[in-house]
């Protein structure tokens, strides 16, 4: 089949993902830089390309609430940014509690300005949602399609956020391949209702319902189950990523992390999202000059790839972790903390350094990343470097 490409902005790629997944319900409230996603979806519905119900809500809280209800019966989708996501916080706990495989696109916008950083999704870290991060517009489209398959897998059945940086991806145009609808249909089976709609369906769903509402069940069980499902997601994400590769010829690392040029290196830079993309250019240039440093791009933040980092610790003597986020009152950024937590169980721990970069859209240039890489290499060579955590 001939490949179909279009030069499009990141937001259009997200809209295509929802369209190709044949979502039946979209609830949305416009917020920069997410707005054009719902404009494109509304256009697709108006022109008859997409057969779905579109509801403009009066705010993000009701967006999430209505998507919860809709996703009990049909494949549903919503998208938001920054403060909009914060306004969804309360019902988001409900979505994971009800174990609904709702998929949401988040176009990163700072909680303290218009420009991107990861503080919006990081503020939802403990809502029980899975979180995937994207580096370019093609990855947004592909991850969007994979997200539905991951979230709806019976071993997982958890809500999922896939995210990309606002402005840097949302409004930047680049060529994106649009997979054929028939192939997506074959890859992603029709939605299976997690709750019964007709009496004859009731039997299979009863187990889940009764656990949720039965006062004799351990009150903590809901989290224990979610935790188990999120851990199962590690396997499911890897499987879906590999299956996507078979169908469409593209995959993203092993689904959890992407190790870029990590053969025969002494150290690695670690990052998520578009910073990781720019870091690839920095790594190319460093390796051309004989520097032994690679890149680990985190693709899945929730579930966090602990085992992958424990394995990477086997070859990297130092890790320079770049965080587009901060957890005030904790030493270092959020992925930095998670990585150190994962490495505690390793006998020979690498040196870990942290850089806060790109917050509120502060530009992260190739030169900045090369400087961070140099510092990480110094640490790998046994030199004492300080500070461990810096504002780059």
């Amino acid at each position: 089949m001939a490949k179909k490409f279009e030069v499009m902005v990141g937001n259009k790629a997200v809209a295509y993902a929802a369209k190709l997944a044949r979502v039946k319900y979209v609830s949305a409230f416009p917020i920069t830089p997410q707005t054009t996603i719902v404009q494109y979806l509304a256009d697709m519905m108006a022109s008859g390309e997409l057969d779905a119900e579109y509801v403009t809500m009066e705010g993000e809280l009701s967006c999430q609430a209505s998507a919860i209800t809709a996703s009990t019966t049909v494949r549903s989708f919503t998208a938001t940014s920054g403060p909009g996501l914060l306004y969804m916080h309360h019902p988001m706990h409900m979505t994971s509690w009800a174990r609904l495989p709702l998929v949401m696109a988040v176009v990163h916008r700072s909680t303290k300005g218009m420009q991107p950083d990861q503080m919006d999704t990081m503020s939802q870290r403990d809502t029980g949602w899975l979180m995937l991060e994207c580096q370019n517009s093609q990855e947004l489209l592909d991850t969007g399609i994979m997200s539905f398959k991951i979230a709806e897998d019976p071993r997982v059945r958890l809500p999922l956020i896939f995210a990309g940086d606002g402005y840097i991806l949302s409004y930047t145009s680049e060529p994106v391949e649009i997979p054929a609808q028939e192939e997506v249909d074959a890859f992603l089976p029709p939605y299976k209702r997690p709750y019964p709609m007709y009496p004859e369906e009731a039997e299979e769903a009863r187990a889940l319902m009764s656990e949720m509402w039965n006062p004799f069940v351990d009150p903590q069980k809901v989290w224990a189950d979610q935790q188990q499902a999120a851990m199962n997601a590690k396997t499911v994400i890897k499987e879906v990523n590999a299956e996507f590769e078979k169908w469409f010829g593209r995959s993203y690392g092993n689904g959890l992390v992407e190790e870029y040029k990590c053969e025969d290196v002494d150290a690695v830079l670690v990052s998520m999202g578009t910073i990781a993309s720019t870091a690839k250019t920095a790594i190319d240039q460093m390796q051309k000059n004989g520097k032994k440093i690679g890149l680990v791009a985190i693709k899945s933040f929730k579930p966090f790839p602990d085992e992958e980092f424990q394995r990477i610790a086997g070859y990297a003597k130092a890790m320079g972790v770049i965080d587009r986020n901060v957890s005030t009152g904790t030493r270092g950024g959020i992925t930095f903390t998670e990585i150190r937590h994962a490495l505690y169980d390793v006998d020979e721990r690498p040196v870990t350094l942290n850089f806060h970069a790109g917050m509120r859209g502060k530009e992260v240039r190739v030169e900045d990343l090369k400087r961070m890489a140099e510092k990480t290499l110094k640490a790998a060579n046994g030199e004492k470097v300080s500070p461990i955590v810096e504002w780059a």
Partner: protein
Amino acid sequence: MEIRFHGRGGQGAVTGTRILATALYYEGKFTQGIPMYGTERRGAPVVSFLRIGEQRINERDLVHEPDMVIVLDPLLGKSVPITDGLKKGGIVLINHPHKGRETGLGGDFKVATVDATNIALDTIGRPITNTAILGAFAKVTGSVSLESIEKAINDQWSGRIAEMNINAVRKAYEEANMPEDVSDLPPQKVEVKPGERDVSSWRVFRPELDKEKCIGCKRCYILCPEVAIGMVDGKADINYPYCKGCGICVEECPVKAIEFVQETL
């Protein structure tokens, strides 16, 4: 190759970048069109970037050392340092009625020109200069065919709008002036500093008041969104540094005492 676009809100720098990104993609290139969004509004200086490569472009930062600068407005250089960071021997393609050496630009680069404002007024009827400049780009660089640009324009619009823009591209291709060396000329000075309120250079048209006809009704004085019109001796008085040339006063004057005159260079 990396390109920086300078324009004003409303001239279509962002759309122009996307059309060129699409056209170059049709030439087999991988492109990345990066708009800069902030508090843009009609007339305010805007900037966008275009990267052209052979495969997927991983860099996600902005372009700081462009090979080429495309300027959609002739007077933008007075308020924005349009040639900053331009590589030695690079090209400036500017919307200007005169040839490269008469644009007031100077430095270690070449200047190509095209009178995009008048071409746009002729073909589109509005001073939206983004598509005209692309026709000149095709001629000056030879890196993209007119067919690819026209195909990309047809992706963006259809019908009469597409046709008008394609006419602008073709006319600009005919009329563009090839790059001229300006390394012996002094650099252009940025006269208006950011934060200053002189917006004279934003105008394509200038309102001119006939004091004899003015009846002192204060309609223009009340409606001017920029408070650029005062009242002196019972007659309207235009304060040009504050006037962006929106034309509301021309439209609203009940006795047609204000005429809209195109600015000339």
